[in-house]
């Protein structure tokens, strides 16, 4: 049986880096495609329909942030930012515009591949599972196998990452998850990483599932520790 290789869209204007990324990704069993211009990124995305996007933040044409927003408006395909800046503002801006994860240049190829694999992980081992969290009068129902989330009868559209985050919290309601544990379970980090990833994505998740994101009922903050799912 021929294994289907995951398609990767690499959006980077540095040809040497793109070529090197191509070599590494092909070695690791991916099928890379390349685009060097931000303004052509969305067209290439629609045409290639990649499983994952590697996106440089500094691009000619359209900026990485804008490309990220455009792709996110279209689909929930995982996006990993390649950033040369470790600055808080750039990383947070990228995450807020919809990126799932980021690697800081110069990254180790193994690290990048691990990040990509974590985002491409399939959750087909939880067939038939349904979870319910949130306040009893307005619960959030999660159909894990069908990748469906509903609240008050309306479907809530989540990216795979947001879905994974919600499922991780919902599987053990009332248990408090530290950001580090969530990074490990959802993002697949084996070592401590940037906990801002968790903060930003919890905010994004809340904006979709909470009735009032300022007063969360589904994903609750436990001050000084982390997060937990609200009572069912």
């Amino acid at each position, binding site marked *: 049986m021929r294994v289907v290789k995951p398609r990767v869209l690499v959006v980077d204007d*540095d040809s*040497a*880096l793109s070529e*090197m*990324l191509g*070599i*590494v990704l092909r*070695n690791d069993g991916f099928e890379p495609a390349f685009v060097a211009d931000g303004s052509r990124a969305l067209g290439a995305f629609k045409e290639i329909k990649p499983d994952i996007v590697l996106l440089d933040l*500094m691009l000619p044409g359209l900026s990485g942030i804008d490309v990220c927003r455009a792709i996110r408006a279209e689909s929930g395909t995982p996006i990993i930012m*390649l950033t*040369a*800046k*470790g*600055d*808080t503002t750039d990383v947070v801006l990228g995450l807020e515009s919809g990126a799932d994860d980021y690697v*800081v*240049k*110069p*990254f*180790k*190829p*193994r690290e990048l591949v691990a990040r990509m694999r974590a985002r491409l992980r399939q959750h087909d081992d939880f067939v038939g599972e349904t979870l319910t969290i949130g306040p009893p009068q307005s619960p959030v129902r999660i159909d894990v196998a069908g990748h469906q989330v509903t609240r008050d009868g309306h479907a809530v559209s989540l990216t795979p990452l947001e879905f994974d985050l919600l499922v991780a919290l919902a599987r053990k309601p009332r248990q408090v998850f*530290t950001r*580090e544990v969530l990074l490990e379970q959802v993002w697949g980090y084996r*070592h*401590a990483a*940037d*906990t*801002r990833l968790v903060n930003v994505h919890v905010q994004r998740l809340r904006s979709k599932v909470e009735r009032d994101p300022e007063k969360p009922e589904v994903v609750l903050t436990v*001050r*000084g*520790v982390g997060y937990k799912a609200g009572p069912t």
Partner: protein
Amino acid sequence: MTSPLPGEPQDWWSRHPAVVRGKRWLDSFTSLWRRSLQVRVATTATVISAVIVLIIGVFLVEQVAGGILRAKREAAISQARVGLESARSVLGGVDAGVVADVADAQQQIISNLTASGTSAGLFSIAIESSTVSSTPSAVAIPKALRRKVQQNTLAWQYAPVPAPATASAEERTVRGLIVGEPVSARTGLFELYYLFPLTAEQQTIALLQRTVWLSGAGLVLLIVGTSLLITRQVVRPVRVAARTASKLAAGDLSQRIRVRGSDDLARLGRSFNDMAGSLQRQIKRLEDLSRLQQRFTSDVSHELRTPLTTIRMASELLLAYREEFPGELARSVELLHTELDRFEALLADLLEISRYDAGAAKLDSETADLRGVVALAVQANEVLAMRHGSELIVNQPEEPVLVDMDSRRVERVLRNLLGNALDHGEGKPVEITIGWDENAAAVTVRDHGVGLRPGEAGLVFNRFWRGDTSRSRLTGGTGLGLAISLEDARLHDGWLQAWGQRRHGAQFRLTLPRRAGHTLLSSPLPLTPLDEED
């Protein structure tokens, strides 16, 4: 004397309500005196003008009153001289021993003298002799005066005299002047006394005094008011300048003083504005420089990192196939790889420290458990500890130690301190202790290795400072680690300090305020390890 007991008499007064009130008033005045130029000037003006007015007033009153009394006295004496002849002729035939005769004589003299006209004003007379006295009962001729007159001289003295008819009923005597003269008669020596009431003169003097003191007080008030007005004119622009200066200091660089006219104060305002303008220009220039520096840092970061990523990936690929390369080539690939790590670490540290230098580093604070951060730093150093054969011992409290901090930065500091301790710990255990109190939390990292030479504790935070080059170095430190850690601690308003002694090891202590923005006053843990104190 022993210490005073409550209620002991020696200082009862200091607790007396009036004294306490007075002290409080004095205190508030003293502080006002120190604070307000206007109060100082006004008070000084009051005191000085009051003293001057007092001196002039006293002198004036003294002079005029003396003049009035002198004139009165001279008039009285000349009156006595004028009356002498008439008195002598009247008294010549009177028997000094017969009372009725003396009274008659007195009437006679008065009518004579009144008829002759007088310039010395109203007066009454009294006649005394060794046997007879016609003095009104309410007054007595002073003995000293009588003695002088009895010695046959004309004499005078101020003394109470009978009130004239115009005076109010209660006053039987008023101040007066008594002039006495001896009148020799056939039967002996009579003493003739002229009693002048000084009521009119006293009224004149009192009026004079009132006028002088009232106008003096008015003058003082006028001077105080004028000085207040003048100081106000001077102080107001100074106050405006002070207010503007403090606004400038608070960061509002666009503040200026409104200048009118061309006097000294206007000049002050103009130079102040010039200063503010040049300050603003300087700060703007520095800000531009800082922005430029940040921009440059960011650009260098991006431009350097992209090719470095490509090189890094290529080297990883080569490393993966190094088994297939001949010996020297394989070793070269390994060297390329490890040195690339160092290069990367150095670049990262350089960029980080340039961010601090540009003032671009920002805290991303939230409340977190310090124990968790320590655990992460320990975890990150476990491999290194194993390679050194050192044990990492953590002493921590049972309960969470919640601190407002940028966990990423604090973990970086601790990771760095642990790496250093392991590198210099000569395989001996490294102890990490967490301590906390109400205001602060602290972590100490202690090693028992080579330690520090005297004076080195202050140098370790210097950039690219190397202690002992012969030390084993597994982390390949960049030489910027502690400098960055110090900046990280400072960004938290915290402390990072070092203690060390040759062959006794070293201890680094990180102290952080538990609430963001609080000022540290003390650390919950000692900098010098307890077992090293002597």
